């Protein structure tokens, strides 16, 4: 699998297709599994890690349904390439930064990734743009079934699938939906929404998962509980709040338009102006401004700009992507200059010819 080719294609989760894609970005389901006959990662010797990696790799190779995956050995991968995979959400930061034998198998269109030796021996994650949780679960379940034909997972009669952290025990499942909620942030209502979600045992995380900040006003909402409910129940629990969150965000957008149209239009236009003309710009500022522009396009305040272009810019302007696309390593100062040029090129081009945004 060539990472340079991946860099040019749009991530499945940022394709931004499906109903209400102005607010619901994507959904993802992951399962945590461990091989029954090895200790959990924390207590694994190098021999254990190698054996687990080999066993799972052989399983993927032997399984016709998994044969077209790209297999990447993370232990041998340069840091920038690991960072690149984190930015695309194909591996976690923890997975990128840890030591010892570990790998990831990636579907050619990035619909799923199989992480080996992350916090658990195997993490199956399936991603789909839009909000198709049922299809996402079917795909996840099918991959789990296929792997389980070859491997005995650690399973306890009463507690279900055993995981390194007891917060994942039982189903080992985390189902999450990613939203873009700029208006709730702008109207300072987001905190209240989060509090009510927490009361329903749902967790809120930023773009890059656990502990990450909510960059670009992207938020992931997921189940906290993994034990005592079936997978379908847990999925339903998350699915149930989605229309509500969409409604809150829509109302906040309507409020901004009705009460404050001039301020909002000014804010969005300034954001667009900076992105089009800055000579040097950080990743954080870019995310922040792109978020305003994305909302502006969705509300019809900016014309001649396509949502897929903006979605792509969110990821292409991240540090490792920028360097991959440029084909050379750059320090922070040079990245900020390259980022500004990249934004200028793509934002100006988009107005002229949307077909050429890559």
């Amino acid at each position: 699998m060539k990472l340079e080719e991946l860099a040019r294609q749009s991530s499945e989760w940022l394709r931004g297709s499906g109903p209400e894609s102005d607010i619901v970005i994507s959904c993802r389901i992951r399962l945590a599994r461990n091989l029954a006959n090895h200790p959990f990662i924390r207590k694994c010797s190098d021999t254990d890690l190698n054996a687990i990696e080999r066993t799972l790799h052989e399983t993927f190779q032997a399984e016709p349904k998994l044969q077209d995956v790209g297999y990447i050995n993370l232990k041998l991968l340069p840091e920038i390439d690991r960072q690149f995979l984190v930015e695309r959400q194909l591996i976690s930061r923890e997975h990128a930064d840890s030591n010892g034998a570990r790998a990831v198998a990636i579907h050619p269109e990035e619909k799923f990734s199989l992480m080996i030796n992350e916090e658990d021996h195997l993490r199956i994650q399936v991603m789909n743009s839009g909000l198709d949780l049922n299809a996402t679960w079917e795909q996840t379940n099918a991959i789990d079934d296929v792997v389980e034909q070859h491997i005995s997972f650690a399973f306890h009669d009463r507690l279900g699938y055993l995981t390194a952290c007891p917060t994942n025990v039982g189903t080992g499942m985390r189902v999450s939906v990613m939203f873009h909620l700029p208006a709730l942030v702008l109207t300072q209502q987001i905190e209240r929404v989060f509090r009510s979600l927490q009361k329903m045992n749902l967790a809120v995380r930023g773009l890059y998962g656990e502990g990450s900040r909510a960059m670009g006003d992207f938020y992931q909402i997921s189940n906290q509980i993994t034990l005592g409910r079936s997978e379908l129940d847990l999925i339903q629990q998350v699915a149930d709040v989605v229309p509500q969150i969409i409604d809150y965000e829509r109302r906040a957008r309507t409020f901004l338009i009705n009460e404050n149209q001039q301020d909002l239009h000014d804010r969005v236009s300034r954001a667009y102006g900076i992105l089009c003309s800055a000579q040097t710009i950080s990743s954080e500022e870019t995310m922040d401004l792109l978020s305003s522009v994305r909302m502006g396009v969705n509300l019809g305040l900016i014309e001649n700009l396509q949502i897929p272009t903006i979605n792509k810019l969110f990821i292409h302007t991240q540090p490792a992507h920028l360097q991959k696309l440029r084909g050379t390593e750059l320090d922070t100062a040079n990245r900020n200059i390259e980022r500004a040029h990249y934004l200028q090129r793509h934002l100006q081009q988009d107005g002229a010819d949307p077909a050429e945004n890559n």
Partner: protein
Amino acid sequence: MKCQRCEKPATIHVTEITGPELDELHLCEDCGKLYLSQGEPTTEATALAHQFKLAEDSEELAALDQQVCDICGTSFYEFRHSGRLGCPHDYVCFEAELEPLIVNVHAATEHVGKRPKRGVNSSEQQVHLVRMRQDMKAAIDREDYETASALRDQIQKLEQQRKPS
């Protein structure tokens, strides 16, 4: 990672969602205790840490911390500090200690979701295999290759039996 409030290593990681932005905190156990005593648990991490804090106050803690899994050697103290268990057998070995924590996080004690399609090896069998691997490693370490290869053959035999036909 160092604690953000002193020089000790950070073992408690908190994401606080109280303002428009998420606040991240990385604290050592002492600062974490102090921090947690100031407010209600809000996230998964704080709920877990809060649970540990409750245990901290109890008198049985010292004895509890000494308890060690005889398969992987993880002590309960180690688990409390890392939040990660050492092997599947820990769930059996620390069953009583883990239960309140599991109830706190999941409000449940029994799995009702998917089960492996083919018969699962009993926990004892799984434990047996892990133990044999540990023994094999120990044998290799003391250069007792005869025992090690006998164990390897046994392990292979057991694993062959478990492969679906």
